[in-house]
């Protein structure tokens, strides 16, 4: 071979070699590829100039020199693998290097019975073609192949079921088909238009077709039609196929209905949510109303208790006055002189009220009087001594008041006189009781009315903080007395401009909160309320020895509905009310809590 052999003539040589299943390469002496036939490499051009060891697994320098027959200057043939195929290689030394010929080993053996092989191959092809035909005929899609002038080249039985028509249609078009079936040409026109579209755009198109099957069921067919090009880019033929998507369509339709339904439900839900939100708002409002009711409930039970006692005292007072009066009128008064009556009245007027005297103390005093009487008034009948002594004690006459005792004992009717003194004393005492009891009742009522008066339209006025807080403390007296020690030390001179009723709400919520916190502890509750003036601001402190409030809770404590007191009737609005009232009064609240105490600091800026 000459160096100046043209590449194209080499191509021809190698092409012919390929027909005899020989693959070859031309190599330089160092193994660099000058030319390689295409079977040996997937991209033969790219291998030119590279080492043959990239193709076959050998080292040209080492392996080949071992194989070189020093006599013939020819290489012994040897086996080598390439792409999982065994090759027998033969190298010849040429003037430019080597010529490498490669025979696939499998092919070498096959060639022996190549005729049998051809038969087998033919059979194989036949079976393959049968396989594809089977697929084409049984695939659940319509398949039709058209020539570029829209004539049928092939239709599968799914496309046209009738064998006769299927055979008839080959080489014909849809217009022929319409004529054959006696149908209007509308379908054919439509199909032609689609076909033209494919031919023009040279792209696959798709559309959906609705038909009725033999039994009248609605069917939806998804059709696609696309060009197949020849090597020059011309449309060789057009393949059309259709798929029954009725069930998919059905699902899609169901989905779309479901989607619409969901949208409707969503709309409904939205409405429900809006409604619920409104209801929640209403509820929140009603809870806040309920909160008021609870407060009113608590108040009224407290008020009932605080009113019951003075009312009871008034009732008993009235009864006992009636009783004493009857005593006076029935026996005593007629037996006493004018002077005695005046004296008894004076005594009753000046006497200190004694509500009750314990039996032991009374006994002791009576004993003392008995001794005194025996010592100083030996003339008294011994049977009268005890009665006189006991009446002296009950009339609250002191043993040191010797003049009075003298005047009583020395009178002609000491027992009647003493009875007069005692009864008037009792009347006076119970009158005082009635008076203070009614004052107490009036105070409860006035505190309550201040508390419950509708101040909605009230304008802000000067509020003396001390009095304002004291009113609330009185209202909560019943709850506080239980087990809370209260230190109340708010400067009476401190005033702010505010709404009394709102401030009542403020204090009562703080008080309620403190009482409830204190109830959680074992130790005796201590509540301190005190004030401080700081840089023009007024600070009021509510300090209790209730349990430590963790920091996470501190953050939440002023949130609406937040409550830790699940067992109580707390709706968690209390401290949020506090916050809103404070906002109205340009005031702020802060909270500090440790194991010893929890302090709410309210700061009113002027």
């Amino acid at each position, binding site marked *: 071979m000459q160096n100046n052999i043209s590449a194209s003539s080499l191509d021809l040589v190698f092409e012919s070699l390929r027909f005899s299943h020989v693959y070859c390469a031309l190599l330089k002496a160092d193994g660099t590829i000058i030319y390689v036939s295409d079977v040996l490499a997937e991209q033969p051009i790219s291998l030119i100039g590279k080492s043959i060891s990239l193709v076959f697994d050998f080292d040209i320098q080492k392996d080949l020199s071992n194989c070189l027959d020093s006599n013939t200057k020819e290489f012994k043939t040897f086996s080598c693998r390439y792409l999982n195929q065994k090759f027998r290689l033969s190298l010849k030394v040429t003037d430019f290097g080597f010529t490498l010929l490669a025979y696939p080993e499998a092919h070498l053996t096959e060639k022996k019975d190549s005729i049998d092989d051809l038969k087998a191959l033919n059979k194989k092809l036949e079976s393959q073609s049968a396989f594809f035909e089977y697929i084409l005929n049984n695939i659940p899609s319509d398949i039709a192949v058209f020539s570029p002038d829209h004539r049928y080249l092939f239709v599968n039985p799914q496309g046209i079921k009738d064998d006769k028509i299927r055979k008839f249609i080959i080489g014909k078009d849809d217009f022929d088909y319409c004529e054959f079936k006696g149908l209007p040409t509308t379908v054919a026109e439509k199909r032609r238009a689609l076909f033209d579209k494919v031919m023009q755009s040279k792209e696959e198109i798709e559309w959906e077709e609705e038909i009725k099957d033999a039994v009248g069921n609605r069917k939806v067919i998804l059709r696609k039609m696309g060009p197949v090009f020849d090597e020059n880019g011309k449309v060789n033929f057009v393949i059309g196929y259709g798929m029954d998507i009725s069930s998919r369509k059905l699902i899609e339709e169901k989905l779309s209905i479901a989607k619409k339904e969901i949208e409707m439900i969503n709309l409904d839900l939205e409405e429900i949510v809006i409604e619920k939100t409104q209801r929640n708002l209403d509820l929140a409002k009603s809870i806040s109303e309920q909160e008021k009711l609870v407060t009113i409930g608590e108040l009224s039970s407290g008020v009932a*208790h605080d009113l019951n006692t003075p*009312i*009871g*005292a008034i009732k008993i007072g009235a009864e006992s006055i009636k009783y004493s009066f009857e005593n006076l009128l029935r026996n005593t008064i007629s037996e006493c002189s004018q002077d005695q009556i005046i004296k008894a009245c004076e005594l009753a007027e000046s006497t200190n009220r004694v509500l009750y005297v*314990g*039996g032991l103390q009374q006994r002791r005093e009576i004993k003392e009087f008995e001794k005194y009487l025996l010592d100083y008034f030996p003339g008294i009948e011994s049977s009268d001594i005890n009665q006189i002594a006991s009446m002296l004690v009950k009339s609250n006459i002191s043993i040191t008041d010797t003049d009075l005792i003298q005047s009583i004992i020395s009178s002609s009717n000491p027992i009647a006189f003493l009875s007069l003194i005692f009864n008037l004393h009792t009347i006076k005492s119970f009158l005082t009781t009635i008076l203070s*009891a009614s004052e107490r009742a009036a105070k409860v009522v006035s505190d309550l009315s201040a508390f419950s008066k509708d101040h909605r339209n009230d304008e802000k006025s000067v509020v003396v903080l001390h009095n304002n807080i004291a009113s609330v403390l009185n209202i909560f007296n*019943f709850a506080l*007395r239980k087990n809370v020690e209260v230190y109340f030390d708010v400067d009476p001179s401190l005033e702010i401009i505010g709404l009394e009723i709102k401030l009542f709400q403020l204090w009562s919520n703080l008080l309620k909160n403190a009482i409830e916190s204190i109830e959680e502890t074992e130790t005796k509750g201590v509540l301190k309320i005190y004030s401080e003036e700081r840089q023009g601001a007024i600070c009021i402190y509510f300090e209790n020895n209730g349990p430590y409030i963790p920091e996470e809770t501190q953050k939440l404590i002023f949130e609406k509905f937040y409550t830790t007191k699940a067992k109580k009737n707390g709706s968690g609005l209390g401290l949020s009310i506090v916050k809103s009232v404070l906002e109205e009064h340009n005031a702020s609240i802060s909270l500090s809590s440790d194991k010893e105490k929890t302090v709410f600091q309210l700061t009113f800026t002027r």
Partner: protein
Amino acid sequence: MDSIKYAVVCVDDDPFILQMLSFQLTKVVNQKHTLIEYFTDPSEAFINIDALVEEKIDIIFIIVDYQMPEMTGAQLIRAIKLKHPNLKCIMLSGQANPISVEELLQDEMLESFIAKPWNEEVLFQAIQPIIESLEA
């Protein structure tokens, strides 16, 4: 003093109540042999009950308020009953915790419960049988 055999004890932190009781009790209790003692402070009452018992004075009954500072009437009654199981107790209250009263009644620690405000008759109905059983 020698004639004194019995005592009645009243415990309420409100002096008004004690005054009312004083007025009502003196009507039915024979003070010739019975002392009527009044306490506003439960712990003072507790100590004095012990003192009376030591003096061999028989306490006929005690009347106790529920809501008091330091301790509730229920707590006082339980404390007394622990030492003097036979002592008869009457509770007089307008603000009692129904649960603790119920518990007291279940534990047979209460002779009767009188709600405030009370009528003289109700009080007398409660204490008359006790006094009569004493005299019999």
